[in-house]
């Protein structure tokens, strides 16, 4: 029963993707786009399969994933802890709120050259950029979730003798979990975008770099392979996050 429900949902989810691929094929077939810019999907997926088993391409994926995970993890840890602290303490709130207001909307790519010089051309600068961009959506969601925790849950925990700082972990964190996970989902997508962008701007490896080299020499098929890869990575990571989510929120009404 559940299996059938899941597979029905999977089919429903695959339908629009199939539709996109079909219209892609259509665009190519009916000449709305030159093959030099938009190769037919068959070629792209064929090349993708070829590439996936090669060691060099796997290395590119690994480089991108390492940066993605490191940056995202930093963003989650910082975002959640700052968000909760700001919700819990007016003093921290007074300090954090204006800083967030200023820093959140800054175009972080503009700082990328400075980051490159400070942290080098390796992982450090890209991880920092990813973390900086993914941080604020997570922070804002966490803050919202934490500041709307049902008061009486906190009261109950306090009355049971929970020290204040522990309440943050034992009540505020789990109660804010739905919002936090929404923030994480957005942060994850942004991480995917930014890591790719950073690699496009300056890098010697990673999917973004693979795309740029292919784009400069007009190898359209090779250009689309990293694009499709990051798409699929986004899909897979999001599915994983969804699984984590339904486990963590199993007690909540909306789960």
């Amino acid at each position, binding site marked *: 029963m559940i299996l059938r429900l899941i597979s029905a949902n999977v089919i429903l989810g695959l339908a629009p993707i199939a539709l996109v691929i079909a219209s892609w094929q259509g665009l190519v077939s009916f000449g709305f786009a030159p093959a030099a810019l938009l190769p037919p999907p068959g070629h792209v997926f064929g090349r993708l399969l070829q590439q996936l088993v090669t060691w060099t391409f796997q290395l590119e994926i690994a480089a991108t994933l390492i940066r993605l995970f490191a940056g995202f993890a930093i963003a989650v840890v910082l975002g959640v802890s700052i968000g909760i602290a700001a919700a819990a303490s007016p003093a921290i709130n007074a300090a954090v709120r204006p800083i967030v207001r200023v820093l959140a909307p800054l175009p972080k*790519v503009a700082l990328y050259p400075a980051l490159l010089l400070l942290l080098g051309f390796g992982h450090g600068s890209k991880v920092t950029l990813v973390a900086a961009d993914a941080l604020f959506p997570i922070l804002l969601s966490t803050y919202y979730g934490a500041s709307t925790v049902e008061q009486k849950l906190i009261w109950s925990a306090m009355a049971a003798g929970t020290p204040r700082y522990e309440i943050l972990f034992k009540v505020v964190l789990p109660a804010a979990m*739905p919002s936090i996970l929404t923030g994480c989902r*957005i942060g994850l997508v942004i991480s995917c975008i930014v890591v790719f962008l950073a690699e496009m701007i300056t890098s010697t490896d990673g999917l973004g770099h693979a795309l740029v080299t292919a784009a400069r020499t007009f190898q359209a098929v090779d250009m689309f392979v990293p694009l499709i890869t990051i798409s699929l990575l986004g899909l897979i990571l999001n599915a994983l996050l969804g699984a984590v989510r339904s486990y963590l929120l199993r007690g909540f009404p909306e789960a």
Partner: protein
Amino acid sequence: MMSPTTLIRRIAPALACIGLLAIWQVASLVLKNDSFPTAIEAIKAIPDILSDRESLINILASLRRMAMGFGAAVLFSIPLGLLMGRSRAVAAFFNPLLMVIYPVPKAALMPIIMLWLGVGDVTKTLVIFLGVSLPVIYHSFEGAKGVEEKMLWSGAAMGLSPLQRLVRIVLPAALPEILTGCRTGLVLALITMITSEMIARQSGAGNILFNALDMGQYDTVFAMIIVVGAMGICLDAIFERIRARLVRWSEPQFDMPLSFS
């Protein structure tokens, strides 16, 4: 008479800004890095930007695009998010699609986008639209999911059609969460407003910034960053007003008691 705490609350933003600038100043002096000018140098470059008529027109053009992208995104994303939140089928249909589309950096798709939409306003507005819609969709989605079922039942029993329930119950009930999404969206709107002008530029704030970056004029780059930050503060303050008005009913009744004593 203002109590000390409200006084602190009032001037906290100014203090924080000054603090940030001070940290920046010290950091840049310590790091001694040409691509990271001091705060004072950057501030000195601001008047040049703001006194230049052309720059102002550029900035206004960017803001106009941002407003359009933001507005369109909000109008599009909230209904989609709410529908996804209330219908498993809709969610199952759109979720994978969105998760395939969003992680692709728009900059990488530029050649294709240019093919159909050219290099003008439409393309940039589309990029802003995509940036804003991401958080708005997902916050609306989760907000709608979390709406207490019995409230919807009450509405249904009063004879509200599913659509009316969506608009008149799910929307207001999820509004606090939706507005959080819009706030993140606002942040992303400013960011994408700039970055959408990274590759192809006509007129805009990003144009000024990336030109300066290409020319290695880092004081202008950072001056522009300050200008964007200031825009962020203003927009956020306006947004906060609107938000407070819309969702006054949802404010917690008591301060979080963790801060007692």
